[in-house]
């Protein structure tokens, strides 16, 4: 890079610090709120004086709360299944779009784009009514289906962008060298395609893990209610105190997986989010 003066370096270092603080302060605030004992919750301080895990493991802590435990299981199950389905269907479609010549593939791509911009609130009414008659209301499939649908466009676009970069000719070369079609696929193509598939899986998972609108509109009990809805409707054990500490603790727990994913896969996530965005 070009020569930089010390003051220039200091400026960029400062910028970096500002960005990191910007991103992490609200998270740190939730962590410290969740570690405060009940009497400190309202003291208006950022950090707790005495650290306690009561909000997690105490008698009224979130780990002891049946609602929250059920919501965790629902969230993990629903998000994983929706991810698996969306990525599988999107892989077929993206492969066809990149590798095969057929009329209508641009319609698939632009239709998917239109759906990406679709306001979910426009279909919660019909889905609510349909799900009640199909017995899908307040069930896992009742949420998996909309999540899969609304993430398909993202998955198809991301995967198409990744698949375009794969040197598919290697497959032929491997077969000339004596590999069976299956071997060529497993040893050559699959490893090349895996990172893109994995990246779109992360993005799809984040969407499903995050959703609140469908989760509140299409569920009513612990049977299928996911974490965002459970947190929003969390009343706590006492009717009189708003359960600030427990909500903070629950929030921290569901944020941990996201932070772990972000730390491990940051490069992939960025590539996935910006894929295709610059190929003018």
């Amino acid at each position: 890079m070009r020569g930089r003066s010390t003051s220039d370096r200091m400026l960029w270092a400062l910028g970096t610090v500002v960005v990191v603080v910007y991103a992490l302060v609200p998270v740190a605030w939730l962590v410290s709120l969740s570690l405060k004992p009940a009497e400190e919750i309202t003291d208006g301080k950022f950090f707790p004086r005495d650290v306690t895990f009561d909000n997690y493991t105490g008698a009224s802590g979130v780990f002891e709360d049946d609602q929250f435990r059920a919501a965790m299981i629902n969230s993990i199950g629903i998000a994983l299944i929706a991810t698996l389905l969306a990525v599988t269907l999107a892989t077929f479609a993206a492969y066809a779009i990149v590798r095969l010549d057929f009329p209508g593939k641009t319609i698939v791509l632009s239709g998917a784009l239109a759906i990406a911009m679709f306001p979910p609130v426009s279909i919660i009414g019909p889905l609510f009514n349909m799900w009640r008659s199909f017995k899908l209301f307040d069930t896992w499939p009742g949420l998996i289906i909309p999540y899969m649908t609304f993430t398909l466009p993202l998955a198809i676009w991301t995967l198409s962008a990744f698949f375009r970069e794969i040197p598919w000719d290697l497959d032929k070369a491997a077969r000339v060298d004596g590999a069976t079609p299956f071997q060529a696929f497993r040893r050559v193509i699959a490893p090349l395609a895996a990172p893109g598939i994995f990246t779109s899986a992360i993005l799809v998972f984040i969407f499903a893990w995050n959703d609140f609108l469908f989760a509140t509109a299409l569920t009513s009990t612990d049977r299928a209610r996911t974490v965002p809805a459970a947190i929003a409707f969390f009343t706590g054990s006492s009717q009189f105190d708003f359960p600030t500490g427990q909500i903070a603790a629950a929030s921290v727990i569901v944020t941990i997986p996201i932070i772990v994913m972000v730390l491990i896969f940051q490069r992939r996530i960025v590539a996935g989010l910006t894929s295709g965005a610059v190929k003018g």
Partner: protein
Amino acid sequence: MTTTIPPQAAGQAPTRPRSGRAQSERKLGWMLCAPAVTVMLLVTAYPIGYAVWLSLQRYDLRFPDDRAFVGLDNYAAVVGNRLWWQDLTNTMIITVASVIVELILGFALAFVMHRAIFGRGPVRASILVPYGIITVVTAFAWRFAFDPTTGFINGLLGTEQSWFTESWSAYVVIIATEVWKTTPFMALLLLAGFTLVPDDLVKASRVDGAGTWQRLTKVIIPLMKPAILVALLFRTLDAVRIFDSVFVQTRGAQGTESLSILGYNTLITRLNLGLGSAVSVLVFVVVLIIAFLFVKGFGANLAQQRGER
């Protein structure tokens, strides 16, 4: 969107395949796309059609026997009601304010990421945290921070503001939440745009005597215009459907009710499927108008931007 095959794919089939092969390729292509397309049509196109159908009826789940076809009465009721226009205005205030702030902050953020020599990893990882974190959780974090009893913001600012009981301050918190959560996404899209700007061109303009501001407004921004427009379009359409943070922070009180909250309340809380569907369809129309304005008015070219070359 162009229909040309990407160059790599074209390279693999140098000779035009015989029609038999072309036909089987076509069939396979449709077969592979069919499951995804079917799902997308069944879960979006069909319900929106169903919503239109419901919106033409008087249909309240609390009085299911009173169901009747009423034509456009529901639309007249919604559009004739002050609440619709109020909520449309509220949504636009939140959208415009947050998108503008995000654009400026996102640009700065992208610039830091583009030029940072060290700490690029930590910067990238930390800005992905707001992107990945659950919106409901974000909304609670900011609500607790501003809440006069639990929060630290009043102590920090030395004020006694009760943020959620006044309209302007409730908006400030909602917009701040929205901005914090989605600026990283904006920044990443803009960062991709920065790579559209050739370094040599910026250097050349510096040699020609352009100052930092001139380089930014005369060279960098015009070259990034496509990326900026796409980022704006994506974020605007996303902000128009704002639901989670308003729901958690005010439930629409203090004049902060958004269109999505209105739709949710009418459909799910009051169980009025007819009227609620009219709201849903109108929200859909609003989104279509915004997308149309961006594409026709500003010439945002999504196809060119998002992958298909």
